[in-house]
């Protein structure tokens, strides 16, 4: 009867954060909340599935190992990011940009538009 559990599957319940906001972005596959419109910096990026957005801060992501990638804008060190809940790959995060003009992206996250949903949220009613 004793189940064989593999350390990588035996997980316990993951704590899911929520950034709130009036327009919420979440994983298209499992609806896990990720970020919101206030964190959106730019919509003029391109990923594997087409349009991609650059966000300042995103939660509930797992990151991959550091990778060296050459993109349209130059050479960058990036990590792939995936949804913490369903492990779907969603985009990447810029760790380091070799060109100075691209350094503004460091620490920011790209999420591909086709892999996320946008939905209605609500403002935080607490004023103090």
């Amino acid at each position: 009867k004793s189940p064989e559990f593999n350390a990588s599957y035996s997980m316990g319940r993951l704590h899911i954060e929520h950034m709130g906001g009036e327009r919420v972005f979440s994983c298209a596959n499992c609806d896990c909340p990720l970020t919101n419109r206030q964190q959106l910096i730019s919509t003029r990026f391109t990923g594997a599935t087409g349009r991609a957005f650059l966000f300042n801060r995103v939660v509930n992501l797992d990151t991959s190992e550091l990778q060296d990638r050459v993109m349209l804008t130059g050479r960058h060190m990036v990590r792939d990011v995936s949804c913490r809940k369903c492990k779907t790959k969603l985009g990447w995060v810029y760790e380091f940009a070799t060109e100075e003009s691209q350094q503004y992206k460091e620490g920011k996250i790209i999420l591909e538009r086709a892999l996320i949903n946008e939905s209605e949220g609500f403002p935080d009613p607490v004023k103090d």
Partner: protein
Amino acid sequence: MENGCLNGVTNGNSGNHAASTAEAAAAAAASAVSPPLNERSLETVRLIGQFLRELGLAHSVDALVQESGCALENSAAASFRRHVANGDWDAAEECMQSLQSLVTEASSATEIAFRLCEQRYMELLEAGDYMGALNVLRNRLTPLKFNTGRVHELSTYIMCSDAEELHRISGWPGSLGGTREALLDQLQQFFPPAVMLPPRRLLSLLDEAVQYQLAKCRYHNTDLPVAEVSLLADHACSRDSAEFPARCGQVADQHQDEVRCCQFSPDGRHLATGCKDGAVFIWRVDDLTLRLSVARRYHIGEERGGVACLAWSPDSRLLLCCAAEDSSDVLVWCVSPPPLLPPASAAAHHHSLLAESHPNGASVVVNSASVLSGGSSEPQRFSRGGTPEESLTTAAWFPDSVHFVAGGIRGQFYLFSLEAGYRKSWDFIRVVALATRTDRDGNTAALAADSFGRVRQYRFDTMQDETLLQEDGSIIAMCLSRDQQVAALNVVNSGLRLWDLQHRVCLQRLAGPGISQGGYCLHACFGGLTGNFLASGSQDNCAHVWRIGGADSQPDRLSGHSGIVNSVAWNPQHHGMLVTASDDCTIRVWLPTGRALSAAATDHGSGGTAATDGSSGQASANLASSPATHSPSDSNPDEDDDDGILE
């Protein structure tokens, strides 16, 4: 050095002490001690002298004074004490003349004179000397013009016909009742300690030292009275001898999947556990052996993502369950039937929210038509009846065991009652964890930790809210201490934080690398006889137990599980019983070492119910020494599985 001893620090007036210092100097010269005693030693001699005198060992006192050359008290104070003890009131008042200048506050002299006369008056009345008593009343008490109300009261006692009536009416125990000693103890407070020592000074210092040791004792979990703690060595409970849950006494593996939650009922008789596969088990706690046996098995369905939250009603009858995956309803089972009430009062029960403000958790009889009155295994479902996008993943009961709040991070935060279902909503709050607490005015407030790292208080009766604290990270879990004064928050990447809810300050940070780095939902629980322990699950497969407020903030680690410990539960009635629930699909019961070992022994003593690996000696060692492997032979075959009514 004598001067330092007798004059103390409160006044430098040496005029009146000329006589006493001279005699003290003479005594010092006659002292047998060489080198001469320093200040601390002299004070200690005085304390010891007082202790011996209070025991009645007069010869020892004399010998002590003689040999150390240290007078125990200012000699005028000593004479004063002697006169009062003998009832020589005139001599006592004479002594007061010379002690007058030593009192801490000049106005006290009148009060001292008053009390002396009061005692004298009462003793004269008791002896039947009415003329003498009247004399004292008129010529000594009244002219003082102090506490005239008391003087009037005293004058009424003249009407008492005998001593026995006097004692009864005035409440004064009589001159034989130690009142002279009590009077001296009271009068001491008017003098600085250098002149007159506070009573039982040595004993109170020793008690303080013992209390300090008890406060530091890492495993202390008993109510040992201070007076019974040995002074011979510093008190420190050893892990194995204390009532501390140090060893695993039972491993129960009835669950088929990761066990996520565990909660004891407030009466300590049942344990509820919730599993990833949707199973909820109710376990009965055996009163004597503290063994767990399965009593009920419920299921909430596989598709709900497992059990997220379990909450017992304060009257220990009902169990509330929230599922993990965006469930728009919460489930309530009636585990024990309500107490029987005569039909008239049962029919009359109907609560309105504002009318009920009884935080004492009185048990309530629910309308018998509701499914909650029976021992049925069907739960009652509570929801707002809204869209399926609603998510209620955490809940907490109100003390009346009728109302509860439930909420989730999608922004639902509702008040429910057992009879009426959904009652009220508080909009736009993304709730992570809930608790309830009695507010200043005696009514119940809901405490909600939200997705912005705040803990806020919500009054559903007045619809007023306020922020209690703001964390600098995402809050994973929250639990309150038994006295509702302290909240323990599990904060992402920061470990456990203890907050004082009344003063809204962070009391302590308990770091644990396995507690919050991985972002798993790990639950903590307060426990112990005085609620001074905090236990938490951890990613390193151990339960961590801290002694709150202890000098050492390193936790004790209870190891034995082979998976993440998700939740812990401390029995509120049996203070040495701790249960841990783990991803290895088992729950473990931790008991004080003595109990854990004897629990394993009785397991084999009773024969067939023991572990089935063939060698009984081996099996008992398995249980007691907490092995890391999970083996099928650890199964707990003495479960009993009745669907009947639990008593």
